[in-house]
Each structure stands twice: as C-alpha cells, then as structure tokens.
C-alpha cells in the first residue's frame, strides 16, 4: 500500500531496490555537501557582516592544500558514484540467457505488443512474476521510449533498429507504462499498463487467449515463401543464399573476415540492408526489403527463422560452390 504522498514509486522489479539504494547513496552525499556549504555561507554572512563604513575583509588569496583537498575528495566520491552506476547499467544492458521474449512495436501513438505464442496486445503487457523478461523493441515511425517507473527501467524505441531491455518483475500487480520520448501530438496518451501475474495465472491467461491470433511462426513461414525467400535460402544449403537452419543464436562468419552473432538485430539488418554484412562464401545478391515489410512482418520472419534454430544445419561445405565464384 502506498502512502498518501509517496516519494518513490512502487518497487516491482529486480532493478527497483538496486536503483533506489543507488539513489539513496547519492542523495546522502549530495545532502551532506548542500547542507555543509549552505550552513557555511549563512554562518559567514552573519559572522562577518560589515560593521562600519570603511571596513574591509582580511585579504586571503587562497590555499593550495585546500584547493587540492576539494578537488580530490569530490573526485573520489564522484568516481564511487560512477562505478556503482556503471555496475547497475552494465547489468541492465546485458540480458541473461533464457528470457521470456516479448516483441514491442511503438507507433504514433500506441504500443503493439506480441507475446511469444503470437498473442497480440495493445497498450497492455501481461507478464509472469519472477521470470526474466526481454523486450525486443522497434518503431514504425519516430523515436519512442518504453518506460515503466515501478520497474525503474526505460529504453528508447528507435526506428531503423532493435533496442532490447530486460528486467524481472518481482511483484504481481498493475503498473503504469509510459512513452518517455516525446513523439508528437498524443505523446502523453501513449501510455498503458503492465499486468504482472503469478506464473500459473500467466500460463492460463496465455493458453486461454491463444489461437485467436495468428501465430507469428506460422505467419513468418507463410511470408518466407510468399516473398520468395525460400527460393534462395534453401534448407539443404545448396541455394544461392545460406541455409537458415541452425543459424539463429550462433556465430556467422562474414566475407570480410569478421564474425557476427545471429541475433534479432542482425537478422533484421540482413532483411532490410542485405549488403551490410555478407556471409562468407556468398555473393551480395539479395534485394533490400526496406519499406516493403511492416515491423510486425519482420518480427514474424524472425520468429520463423528463430524456429529453425534447432533444425540440423546442412553439412559444412554445402554452399562452397558459390565461394569459388561458380554459380
């Protein structure tokens, strides 16, 4: 139960207590300096108030030891704040393995959300308690920002690439969701609710509502043949483009010698800007699908490619024919 005038929002995720403690630490340091300096200034004003017309102050020009002290001490404290803040941030930016992945698309002025089984929600997100959740977010127009104060998390949702963030809800309840990056006329009503449920309730909710929406996997498979992806990306690896079996989540060698992790962002880029990263042994033949697929279609394609993760990859060397230049 919140007090009448709370100073902090509810703590409902793994990050909330950490961020609040960090806040308290910095507040304590800052309060100390603010009070000390204010007290000194006020004391000096009264203590050294001018007594008569021609009085002048005692000429003191400075003191190098003092200057050194008030450079070094604040620097040390500042570095402590920096280090603690960095630890929290690095944790926030690296999602753990085995997350519940939810796709989020921001558009003027609503949040479109897709659960792992394809169930779609608008301005509502249902989540299970005590489960690591990862949001994979894209924007269809301008920059938005997915912000949940009760979780102490937010992340910009930027057109042109995926941003992800993770957290673990720790308390069942309903929490406000805001768009925190100004996005035009109805920015202030691009809000919604996060509903955190007990895990069993979530499972029941998910199965009870499933089937009413197209499964992204099915939609993705359909798109994969409709858009003729399948004509080059043959599963046996004998096509003009690499087989996508077992690609997701693994390391992909590139033509320029680098390797890249096949995550959502990489696959998205490969669909929209195929020439950006060419797989070793293949020619840059694929056309760009920039502007031809909606964010939801891209999400569906990725879901399908992700489902091929556990398919056996073709034997090594199957695609090498093209590497020798003979197509």
């Amino acid at each position, binding site marked *: 139960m919140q007090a009448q005038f709370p100073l902090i929002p509810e703590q409902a995720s793994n990050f909330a207590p950490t961020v609040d403690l960090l806040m308290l630490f*910095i507040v304590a340091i800052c309060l100390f300096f603010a009070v000390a300096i204010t007290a000194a200034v006020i004391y000096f004003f009264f203590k050294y108030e*001018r007594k008569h017309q021609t009085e*002048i102050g005692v000429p003191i020009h400075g003191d190098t030891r003092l200057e050194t002290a008030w450079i070094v001490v604040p620097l040390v404290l500042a570095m402590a704040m920096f280090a603690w803040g960095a630890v929290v*941030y*690095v944790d926030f930016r690296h999602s753990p393995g085995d997350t519940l992945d939810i796709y989020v698309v921001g558009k003027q002025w609503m949040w479109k959300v897709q659960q792992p089984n394809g169930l779609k929600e608008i301005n509502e997100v249902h989540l299970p308690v005590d489960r690591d959740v990862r949001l994979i977010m894209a924007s269809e127009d301008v920059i938005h920002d997915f912000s949940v104060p009760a979780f102490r998390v937010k992340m*910009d949702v*930027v057109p042109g690439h995926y941003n992800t963030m993770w957290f673990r809800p720790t308390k069942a309840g309903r929490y406000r969701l805001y768009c925190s990056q*100004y996005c035009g006329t109805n920015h202030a009503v691009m809000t919604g609710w996060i509903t955190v449920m007990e895990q069993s309730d979530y499972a029941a909710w998910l199965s009870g509502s499933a089937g009413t929406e197209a499964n992204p996997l099915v939609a993705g498979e359909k798109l994969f043949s409709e858009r003729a992806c399948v004509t080059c990306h043959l599963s046996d690896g004998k096509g003009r483009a690499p087989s996508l079996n077992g690609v997701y989540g693994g390391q992909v060698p590139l033509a320029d010698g680098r390797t890249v992790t096949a995550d959502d962002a990489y696959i998205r880029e490969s669909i929209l800007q195929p020439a950006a990263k060419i797989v070793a042994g293949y020619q840059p033949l694929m056309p760009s699908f920039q502007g031809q697929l909606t964010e939801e279609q891209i999400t569906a394609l990725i879901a399908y490619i992700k489902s091929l993760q556990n398919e056996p990859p073709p034997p090594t060397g199957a695609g090498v024919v093209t590497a020798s230049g003979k197509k």
Partner: protein
Amino acid sequence: MDTPTSTHTATAPVYKIPGEHYLNSSYGIRSWLLTTDHKRIALLYLFSVTFFFFVGGIFATMIRIHLMTPQGFLVTPETYNKLFTMHGVAMIFFFLIPSIPAVLGNFLVPLMIGAKDLAFPKINLLSWYIYVIGGCFVLYSFSTGGLDTGWTFYTPLSSVYSNSAVTPAVLGIFINGFSSILTGLNFVVTIHTMRAPGMTWFRLPLFVWAQYATSIIFILGTPVIAITLLLVGLERMFHLGFFNPALGGDPILFQHLFWFYSHPAVYIMILPAMGVISEIIPTFARKPIFGYSFIAGSSIAIAVIGFFVWAHHMFLTGESVYAALAFSFLSYLVAIPSAVKVFNWTSTLYKGSISWDTPMLYALGFIGLFLIGGLTGLFLACLGLDIHIHDTYFVVAHFHYIMVGGAVMGYLGGIHFWWPKISGRMYPEFLARVSAIILFMGFNLTFFPQFILGYLGMPRRYHSYPPEFQVLNVMSTAGASILALGYLLPMMYLVWSLKYGTVTGPNPWPATGLEWKTDSPPPTENFLVTPEVTWEPYDYETRPDLELDHIVAGKLPAPAHGDD
C-alpha cells in the same frame, strides 16, 4: 570624472550625472540603429533579449496553468506541445544564450580591460542584426503554425512527421548562430589584443575569464548546431536522407550532432553567470577572491571538458555500453571544476566584510540554487540512476535549477550590480531585496516538487498526467505565479529608477574593477585617458582611490575613533 560636492565625511556625497555620456552623445533612432558603441549595442541586446524572455515567459505561464489539472484544461494537446517547444526555443536560443554575453559581456568586457570598444565594432553591430533577423524567422514560425518538435528537434519527428512550421524555425536558429560566433570571435580578439597597460592575464576580472571561456564554446560549438539544423531543414524540404531511416539516414546521428553543441551550450549559459558571481562576491565581501587562478582555470576546464560529455543525453538510445561508460565518467569529471568554484566562493566569504546589498543576495541565491542544480546533475550522470530518471520531470527540474536558478539569477544579479554603471542611477534597494527573496522562494516552490514528480516517474512533455501527480503539479504552478511576480517587479522598478533613482557617481559599492574608474554612465570612448593597471584584482588593501567613506550604497556609521 565628477567630484563629490560634500567634504570628507561619512555621509554619502551628492553626485551629478556627467554632462556628456554614451546615452546622450547623440540622439535619434539612427544614432542607435547604426551605432558601433559596444555599450549601445549592449542595450539593443538588452531590449531584444528581454522581449524574448517575455515571449518565453508567457508560454511558460500557459504551460503551468494548463498542468493544474490531470487532464489539462487550458489548451489542446497540439497547442500544449507547441507551447513547451516555443518556450524552450525562445528561452534558450534567444534569451539565455545571448543574455549575459551579449548584454553584460558587450557592455563590460571593453570597460573591464580598459579598451575603448571591442576589436570589431561594426561586426558587433552586425551580430545584433543577425540576431534580430534570426529572431524574426523564429517569430514567423511561432505565428504561422507554431513549432511542436520540442526544442531538441529530434529526428525523424522534426524532419518528417511534424506538421508545424519547422523550416523557418531551424533557419532562424541557423542564422542566429552566426550572431553567437561573431560575438565570440570579437571577445577573443578583444581580450587578446586590447588590454590596457598593466592588465595582465592574471589581473583580468574573472568575469572576463568566463567570457573568454564562453567565447571558445561559441566559436567551436555553434557551427555544429547551425549545420545540423540546416540538415533537418534540407531533409524536410528536399527529402535528403540524413536522419530518416526510411531514406537510409540515422536518427541517432542527429542526437550526436545536436548535443555536441547543446551540451556545451549549457556552459554558455552558466559560465558567464559564474563570472558575474565571481565579481559580486569579492566586491561585497571586500576582499580578494579566494583561489583566483583556480576559478579562472576552472572556467577553461569546464569549456574544454564540456565538449566531451554530450552523449550522456543518450544513455538509453541503445548506444554502445562502452560509449555510455566513457561519457558517464567524463560527465563526473566536468562536475569537479564547478565544485571548485563553489568552494572558492564560500571561502571568499570567510573573514570578509559582508554587506547584504541586492547583488549579494542574488549571489547567495545563485549559490543555493546552483548547488541543487549541480548536485542533481550527479544523479543524471549516474548510468544506473539515469535509466529511471531520464526524460522525466527530474531532468526538467535539474536544468531549470541550472538555467533559471543559476543563469537567470546570475544575469539579474549582474544587471543590479552594474545598473548604476549602465544608467548612472541606483535601483530602489528595499524593493530590489524583496524581489530577490520572492524570486528565490518562488523558484524553489516551482521546481523542487518536480524532482519528486520525476522520481515518481512523471515523463516530461506530457499535456495530461495520471491523477496521483496533481498535488505536486499544483504546488509547482503556485510557485510559478510567485516567480512571475519576482520577474515583473525588477522590470518595473528598474524602469522607474531611470528617472527617479539616486545618482550614484562612478563607483557606488565601491568595486575594484576598471569599469568603476570611469563615469557612470561612461563616456562613449569609455576612458578619456587610457588607464594603467597597477593593482591586483579585487584588492581593497592598497586602493585609497576607492574612497570607502564616500560610497553611496549600504551606508553604515563611520568607524569608531581609533578603529582600523
């Protein structure tokens, strides 16, 4: 120089306004619009930045009235978005950035270093005209469709999606940029080449050091914002894909370019105010400033390090974790020189002879508000904490404490401090003290609740908000009404004092700078004889010429016999 008519007593002498000075040396509208006198140009700027301050202030008033209820009852969402955008654009580009440099800096830099004018007087006039032309473009944008992109002009909202008058506004800011660049150039050349004999670098008033540091930022930073906003205009008009991802551009690139200038711009606003405070405190404590070289050096350090912190506005754009770590680290570094200044100001008060004159009250208010503004910057520089408070009212409160609590308090403190020099007359002391206190209280009531709102999660730029935030919003609006009174009062009594204020003579406080060695108001050529500086800055010990028993301000009894 006029001489006091009374004899050597503790009562203030009666002064007369000198026969000829920069205000009456010539008459007519042409003599103002074609003037090359830095003091008249400063006054031209004073009128124009005051105009924009009131334009921005009216928008702010409407914003605060609108936010009294959760649903917002004054204007539509479209209009609200335009109000906060136009408030930001008017206040930042057309009031705060030019306020202290172009008004007080223009008036004082030549006087303080003992020069007759700036190095390039005609360019100085040109920069005012450029400012006015830029201002007209922006006013045209405001009055024909308004502007709803936020003052930050984030792409692709500004370059593709906004239906408001973005193009004239970005052109106006592009044009206005040249005004800043030329002013900065003028100051740098003037300070390097036109110092009076004996005015060495380490005898320069700290206000001049602050103007020098600011000028560096003007020259190095402004071209970047100018060209960036021009690119936004080109993307809007000709669909060139710089920032729009649909055309192959990168919206985050815009943020890098924008903040590369706009973060240093914060220092453009605060550094000159720090310079003002560094003048006021030694004058009203009547002793040399503590740690002169550390205060001077910290201005330069802020100007330089300030160029390497820009991406701390972008911790949550998805930028690389390593970049975020570097920019957080550098943001903490830039806090240190600001802390050094505050410690030095405080130490200057120790064993001073302190008076409570209005400029000193503003300096006191500045220290209090800048402390809160600066310290809350440490919260935002903290990566882990920024995840939660980024883009909330915490940020709004923080930068208002710096820009209004810091820069505007410094500006008003400076206007009061040098008002006798500018006008030759004193403002009414009692009213001035009252309004300084009203400003301080109104400001805190307006913006302190916003820190709490921010931590509770209220995002900025919301025309409506959940009902649980109403109490704090109403407090903020109540504070804003007090704040408005605090701004209107000086406006009225300063105008009143032009005719009815006490004539002060050359050095009413008295202060130690060269600008106080000439008449008030000064003659057009500033000094009839080029002065020679033989004293150290803020030195009261060896300056019998200050005639402490002749001062006009803050009269006190003469020392008891045998004292001193």
